[in-house]
């Protein structure tokens, strides 16, 4: 996973420099994750395909602006995420109800979409942490009894949260 991400960063940097030979490989590496993200966010295959295509177009249109000091995948994901939000907002405006058949007000649906988005981002950041940090945070979230307690647990929780914040900032550039 890490190697694939490094490969994408290097290829994206070459594409930003104008090396067209890597275009097809960058496309291949991006298409899968972007499409999957759109399916997760929009919960509808047709909408996800539309949003993913738009996102791919925007990502590669801006490939020359890619900042080589930052990882390429979160940057691309942020553009795809924005594209999905835009599509969802359009649907809300047109009062199109999602295929799950929820009859919610437009505002409510958008709130839920944003919440789902944030959850997906937090889960992705959590996946970057160590096993121990993950366990501590999950136990805290579900209010489960951990293997340690008292001051040790508090300290561990504090450190894990700090690392989660740093990972989130590194991946998405914000807190």
């Amino acid at each position, binding site marked *: 996973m890490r190697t694939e991400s490094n490969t994408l960063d290097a290829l994206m940097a070459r594409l930003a*420099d104008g090396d067209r030979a890597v275009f097809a490989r960058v*496309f291949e590496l991006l*298409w899968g994750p972007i499409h999957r993200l759109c399916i997760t966010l929009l919960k509808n295959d047709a909408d996800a*395909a539309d949003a993913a*295509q738009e996102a*791919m177009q925007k990502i590669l*249109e801006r*490939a*020359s*602006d890619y900042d080589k000091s930052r990882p390429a995948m979160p940057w691309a994901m942020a553009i795809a995420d924005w594209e999905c939000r835009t599509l969802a907002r359009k649907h809300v405006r047109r009062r199109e109800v999602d295929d799950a058949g929820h009859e919610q007000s437009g505002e409510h649906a958008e709130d839920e979409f944003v919440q789902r988005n944030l959850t997906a981002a937090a889960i992705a950041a959590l996946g970057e942490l160590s096993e121990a940090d993950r366990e501590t945070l999950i136990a805290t979230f579900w209010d489960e009894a951990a293997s340690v307690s008292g001051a040790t647990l508090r300290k561990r929780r504090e450190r894990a949260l700090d690392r989660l914040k740093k990972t989130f900032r590194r991946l998405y550039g914000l807190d």
Partner: protein
Amino acid sequence: MDSTDLSQLQRRVRWAYELGRLRRALLGVAPVLVIVAVAACVAHRPMSTLWFGLATVSVGAAMLWYGRDPQKAVLPGIAAGLVPLVFAMCANHMHTCGADGCSSLCVPACALGGVVAGLAVASVGNQRKAGPWFWVSASALALLTGAMGCACLGYSGVVGLGLGFGAGMVPGLLRRAFGEKST
């Protein structure tokens, strides 16, 4: 999506990528338009200046769009070309008078500016250990930028610029050639 749809999407995305680069390239050369406009206002032969300016803008935009070594050569090339351009613009308003009459300083200014530009391009090329495309691209842009001012006395100024530029490049090229041999 099946493979046909994906390859169609890839073509569309590739087109978007090229358009994105073109847009960026046009934005990148926009400041050169200001230089061309100022040079055309000051020059004695504005039409020649405009033609060379148009060529500079087109070549610069093409290099920025293409990317890689030519893209990296745009800034050093134009910066080096500004030296003969400014020298020629100043020389346009000066002349020397002797027993045989007065003569313009345009050609000597262009030759001198060319030497400085050649030295500058060679120095940047050697410093960056750049490939041949960098040298060719930077030289082309430096000559075109300088030529905007050096067309002051017909094409003799441009020839002077070219000769001066070639002379200025010689030490850098020698350093590169012998430096490569010794490593």
